[in-house]
């Protein structure tokens, strides 16, 4: 069935003659965005300036250090096995968030589109899982994985990915619930099973949410330091753990300049991921209807 109306999506580039008020409105919008962006940037710029200061300058309010201490960055990557930590972090984050996004989409779809006895109760359980502070599950989970000799391996991340994340399940459920019945019904009439419906119809329609979910999930995995600190040994752990405990003097006191530099580097991969993934938001979707 072809679509009756092919409309440009909100957010896409529109070609419309500009109304007189629109230009002023657009500049005002721009100014607002710039102001807000500056407010958001201040702490980050401060972090950047911290990463270029010397130890003695830490306690001064100046923006720019007297000389740019690029050596802090060198320290950041030499005081800890930075490259190794980065590789492991990237690997674990991709595995966990990739699997979790797909698995959660599956589960969210089930909750949104299928009916079965006990579904309501189970969904409440999903949401309830969100309410569990991590401390509660962390030590017993260690016991379980220790029993099956999976500590100091990367398998826990595969398993956590496969199990999905309550947060994403909830998100996908809300997303899929908003899609009208018609498409589904038509597909069923045509003889499609539910997995086909999921894979061919609903999943593509939820691309923006998939991307958002993956990015959020990746960010969470990237920043998680409790689980790697418990399940991985110090030489094969993630950057999050390395950062939070690695930049110390022989007496155990933290080296703030290296920490700041390390943090700047730490943020880069997720930033890049975000910039790349953002296209998924821009292209909104022009879906092609039912066949």
């Amino acid at each position: 069935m072809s679509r009756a109306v092919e409309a440009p999506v909100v957010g896409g580039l529109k070609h419309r003659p500009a109304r007189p008020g629109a230009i002023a409105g657009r500049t005002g919008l721009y100014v607002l965005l710039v102001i807000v962006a500056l407010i958001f940037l201040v702490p980050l710029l401060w972090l950047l300036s911290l990463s270029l200061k010397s130890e003695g300058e830490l306690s001064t309010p100046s923006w720019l250090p007297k000389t740019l201490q690029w050596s802090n960055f060198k320290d950041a990557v030499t005081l800890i096995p930075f490259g190794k930590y980065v590789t492991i972090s990237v690997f674990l984050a991709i595995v966990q968030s990739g699997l979790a996004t797909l698995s959660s989409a599956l589960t969210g779809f089930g909750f949104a589109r299928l009916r079965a006895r006990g579904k309501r109760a189970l969904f409440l359980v999903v949401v309830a899982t969100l309410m569990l502070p991590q401390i509660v599950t962390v030590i017993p989970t260690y016991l379980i994985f220790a029993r099956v000799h999976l500590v100091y391996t990367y398998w826990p991340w595969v398993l956590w990915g496969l199990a999905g994340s309550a947060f994403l399940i909830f998100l996908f459920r809300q997303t899929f619930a908003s899609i009208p019945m018609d498409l589904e019904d038509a597909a069923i009439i045509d003889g499609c099973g539910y997995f086909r419906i999921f894979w061919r119809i609903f999943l593509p329609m939820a691309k923006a949410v998939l991307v958002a979910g993956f990015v959020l999930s990746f960010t969470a995995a990237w920043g998680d330091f409790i689980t790697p600190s418990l399940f991985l040994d110090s030489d094969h752990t993630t950057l999050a753990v390395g950062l939070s405990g690695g930049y110390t003097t022989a007496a155990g006191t933290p080296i703030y300049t290296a920490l700041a530099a390390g943090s700047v580097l730490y943020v880069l991969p997720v930033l890049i991921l975000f910039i790349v993934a953002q296209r998924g938001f821009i292209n909104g979707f022009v879906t092609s209807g039912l066949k």
Partner: protein
Amino acid sequence: MSGRFSRRRLLAGAATAAGVAAVSSACGSGADSTTLTIMGNHPSEITDSDVAGFSKKYPNVKIKFVTNSVQLLTAMFAAGDPPDIIRDQGVQNTPYLVKRDLAEDLAPYFAKSTVLTDDKIAAVDDVWRYDGSVQGKGPRYGLAKDYSQDAMLWCNLRVFEKAKVEPPDPTTPMSYEEMLDVAKRITRRKGAQYSAYGLYPPFDVSLSAGVINMVTSAGGSVFNSDYTKVDFSAPEAKSALQWYLDYADAQVGPTVARPLAAGAAAAFFADQLGMVGYGYWFGGEVASNPQVQDHVRFVTAPQFGSTRTSPCFAAVGHWIPKTSKHKQEAWNFFEWYFGEQPAIDRAKSGWGLPGITAMNADLPETKPYQKQALDVQNAEFSHMSVLKYSPYVAFTALDASLSQAFVKGLESGLSAGKLADLVNDTLNPLLEQGKELVA
């Protein structure tokens, strides 16, 4: 449905993989190599060269480091598989670990050793001794990797010059009153903004150690004779609490309610802190900050009461758990790390005093400030004493309850008596429970 098959395949694949992983790791890495699991700070305290040297001596032993965290330690003990070597603070934790049957009695190992013998080991390591009722006597349960007498002071002379105040004498101890008075005179402040702090008292390492030191010096004790109760409302303890309140009122330095964002070291090196209560180890930090080296002075510990005390507050070192499966290998590592080249390297770095007395000769004295610090330190050794902790409560609880009481007290203006009651009320039930759990 193709979909269901692929999902099933995915799950089946994961299960098989997990099984394979389990089987392969259960097989172990071969019968002739063991893995020593160490919970410590690598590479800052146990350096790569320490590990390399050990591996050369014992090629069949692999070393694995795990994160230094209480959560992990608890989890590993709960799973029945603790690390073989565990980092800890000997001053605070030895009685606790021993009473709970966690630490291995190392006396037999010491007896057979040639590297670590009683005559070689420094007096500080008595804190790692416990005989069941008194800390400081009995068999050894661990060793300090290095130590300092943490109640001492480092002075930034530039702050004193600016205020035109005489810096304290290096070997004559000030009283806490005098110290507070000096601090008042060198502090520079405008409203809530300080351009120079006068004092950062020796509580950074451990609040409880700082307080217990003051109380001991005044001839009292926070514990009763069998360490089952605390009483902070006894006169000596109350006056220690009162001093802290006075210090906070004087607004001459950071407190628990108002910490230094960048840390004391940063302030000191920026000439914005006049006196900081750290031990010899701080010289290591001074070594990496050349700009301050020509105006520092190391000074003897201040004296609160009638007895002159200068204890160690932490004695960071390692112990071996009773349930470790590799005790001999752990001991081999002990001998290497505490008695041989790594210990010499640590002494040479100036980051702490060595646990082996002979290595005091390796302490750095090339720069003038290092010579001055070493002179003062040499005079200080004779005032070394052992702080005594209770086996029935974790030292973290002591530090925590003091910290919490101070926060409340400083914000609500409580009296020393009220503070004492708060601390007593928090700690005594815990002590009671501890006694019961250990019986």
